[in-house]
C-alpha cells in the first residue's frame, strides 16, 4: 500500500478523495492525547477515555471465544455468532480488562459509535475537522476482532489510537471474487465476504485466489491513519487485547441524496427479473440517465422543463421522493 508520513493536511484529503486509492499515513495522529496515553499503557488510554464519558448507553457485540473474534454468522448463516448487549463504556472496558488477563477471553466489540455522543468533547483534540459534505466521526473499541471484508458508501479516514489493526483492502471490482453474503441479513449493516481469510477454502471459494492478487494490506500502530476510499472492500483485524480506532466518514453529496443502496434494492425488485431483452434496454437507459449522463440527456429540452433530468434542486428532490413513496406503497 502507498505510504506517506506526517499529519494529513486538508488539501491531502481532497486529493486522496479524488484519487480514490488507499493510502497509509504513518504517525499522522501521534500527537493526539489518546494516542499518547495508549503508548503509556492500555490502562491510561482507558482512563483518558473515561474522563470524557457522561453515561451514554452503548451497544456492543459479545461472542464466545471459540469464534476467535470473527464477527460472523453461525453455521448455515442461520444466525449471527454474537449477541448484541446494551452496556456502558465502563462496562465495556471492564470486560476488555477482564479478558486481557485470560488466553481464551470472549470477544467484546463496540463498533461505529458516534464519537461525540459517547465521549463528548474528546473529538476536539482527537480527530480532524472535515469541511463540506456529510461527515461523521465514529469510535470503535474492543479486544481481538475480525470484521469481514465489506464496503461503506463513504470515504473513510481511520486512525488507530490504541492497539494494532491489520487492514486488507480490495478494489470495488473484486465483488464477484469475494463471495459476498446476504444483503438483507448482515452482522453489522453491510454485506460481508463469506470467505474465512484466516483459512481460505479455495475449493469452496476458488475465485478468492484472484481477489487476493488485487489485495493490499497494512498493519497500523497507534497514531497511524489509513484512507479507505468509498466502496473499497476492507477486511479489518484488531490484533491487540485492547484496540481503539477513531474514523472519519464523509461524502460529497447534497442533503437530499439518500443511500445509493436503496436504489440497488429497488432495481433488484423491479428490474432484475424482467425478460432479458427488457433488462438490456433498461441497462441502456440507466447508462444514459444515471451512469454516463451527458449533454445529450437534456440539452434539447427547455431548461424549465428538465425536471429530474436537469440539476436537482431541493424542490425537485422533494417531488421525486413523494412520487417514489406513493408508488412504493401498494
Amino acid at each position, binding site marked *: 500500500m502507498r505510504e506517506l508520513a506526517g499529519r494529513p493536511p486538508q488539501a491531502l484529503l481532497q486529493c486522496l478523495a479524488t484519487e480514490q486509492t488507499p493510502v497509509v499515513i504513518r504517525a499522522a495522529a501521534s500527537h493526539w492525547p489518546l494516542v499518547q496515553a495508549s503508548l503509556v499503557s492500555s490502562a491510561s488510554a482507558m482512563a483518558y477515555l473515561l474522563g470524557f464519558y457522561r453515561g*451514554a*448507553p*452503548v*451497544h456492543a457485540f459479545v461472542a464466545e471465544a471459540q469464534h476467535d473474534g470473527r464477527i460472523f454468522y453461525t453455521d448455515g448463516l442461520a444466525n449471527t455468532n454474537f449477541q*448484541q448487549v*446494551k452496556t456502558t463504556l465502563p462496562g465495556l472496558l471492564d470486560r476488555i480488562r477482564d479478558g486481557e488477563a485470560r488466553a481464551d477471553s470472549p470477544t467484546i466489540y463496540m463498533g*461505529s*459509535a*458516534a*464519537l461525540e*455522543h459517547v465521549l463528548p468533547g474528546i473529538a476536539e483534540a482527537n480527530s480532524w475537522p472535515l469541511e463540506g459534505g456529510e461527515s*461523521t466521526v*465514529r469510535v470503535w473499541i474492543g479486544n481481538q476482532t475480525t470484521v469481514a471484508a465489506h464496503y461503506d458508501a463513504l470515504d473513510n479516514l481511520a486512525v488507530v489510537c490504541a492497539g494494532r489493526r491489520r487492514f486488507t483492502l480490495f478494489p470495488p471490482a473484486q465483488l464477484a471474487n469475494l463471495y459476498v453474503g446476504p444483503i438483507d441479513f448482515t452482522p453489522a449493516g453491510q454485506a460481508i465476504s463469506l470467505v474465512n481469510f484466516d483459512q481460505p477454502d479455495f475449493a469452496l471459494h476458488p475465485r478468492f485466489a484472484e481477489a487476493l492478487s488485487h489485495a493490499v494490506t497494512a498493519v497500523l500502530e497507534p497514531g497511524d491513519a489509513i484512507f479507505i476510499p468509498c466502496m473499497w472492500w476492507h477486511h479489518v483485524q484488531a490484533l491487540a487485547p485492547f484496540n481503539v480506532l477513531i474514523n472519519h466518514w464523509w461524502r460529497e453529496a447534497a442533503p437530499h441524496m439518500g443511500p445509493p443502496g436503496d436504489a440497488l434494492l429497488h432495481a433488484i425488485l423491479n428490474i432484475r427479473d424482467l425478460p432479458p431483452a427488457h433488462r438490456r434496454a433498461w441497462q441502456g437507459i440507466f447508462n444514459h440517465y444515471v451512469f454516463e449522463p451527458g449533454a445529450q440527456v437534456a440539452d434539447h429540452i427547455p431548461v424549465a422543463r428538465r425536471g429530474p433530468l436537469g440539476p436537482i434542486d431541493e424542490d425537485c428532490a422533494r417531488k421525486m421522493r413523494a412520487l417514489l413513496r406513493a408508488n*412504493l*406503497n*401498494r
Partner: protein
Amino acid sequence: MSKHELLDNVTHRRLRVHTIYGPNRGYDFNIARAFPSELPNLQREYPLFFVKNLESGHFEPTALLGFAEHENLYLTDSGWDAEHIPLTVQRQPFLIGFQDRLLEGIAQQVPVTHIDVEHPSVSVSEGIPIFLPQGGESPYLDRIHSILAAIYAGHEAARSLSQILVGLELIESITVNVEFENGTKHSLEGLYTVNDEKFRGLRANGLEALHSRGHLQDVYMMLASLLNVKRLVARKNRRLSDLRSAT
C-alpha cells in the same frame, strides 16, 4: 389474553381489524387512560380522574367508563355511544413498542408498532386489511400510526402535568360514591382529582407555573368533567331499566 408482536408486513400480511365497537369485542373495560391534548374533547362526555401509575409514580388522566371492572357504559350494540373516543381505545389492537437500535452511531430506543394478535378485533376474515396487497401500508394503518404518535407525544405531556400538580400539592385522593335508581350503592376507590379548594387558593406563582407549561387548561378540563359522573350514573340507570323491561 393478549399476545403482542412487532407488526410486520410478512408475518401479519393477512390480518384484518374490524373497527366496530361492541360488547365482547375487547373493549369491556371501565377505565381508559387519556392524554392532555384530548381532555377538552373528553371532558364534555366522560368523568376524568387521575389514576396513579404504580411503576412510575405519576398520576395519569383517565376516563371513567363504568363502575364495575368490565363495565363499559359507552359500549352499545350499535357502537361506541360518544362523540369522542379516547386515543387509547382508538389505538386498539395496536400499541407502541420500543426497539434498541444504533442510528447514526447513537444507541437509542425507537418506538415501533406492535399488534395484539389475540385481540378480539383481529382476524383474517373480518374488517379492514392492515396492509395493501403488495405489503404497503393501508390508509387505516396510516391512521393508527398517527394515533400512536399522538399517544407517544401524550406521554411526555402527561408526565409534565403530573409533576407540576404533585409539586403544587394539588392532587388528592377521592372516593366516588354513587347510588343507582334500584337502590344499589357503589363506591369507587383508587381515583385522584385536583383539590378544588387548593386550586382556587393558588397564588400568582403557582398559576403562572401551570399556565406557562400549558397545564392550566388541563386542570379546568379535569374539574369540569366531574359533572359527568351524574351522566354516567344516568347511563347506568338506563341500562338497569332496559334490563328490567327486558325481563
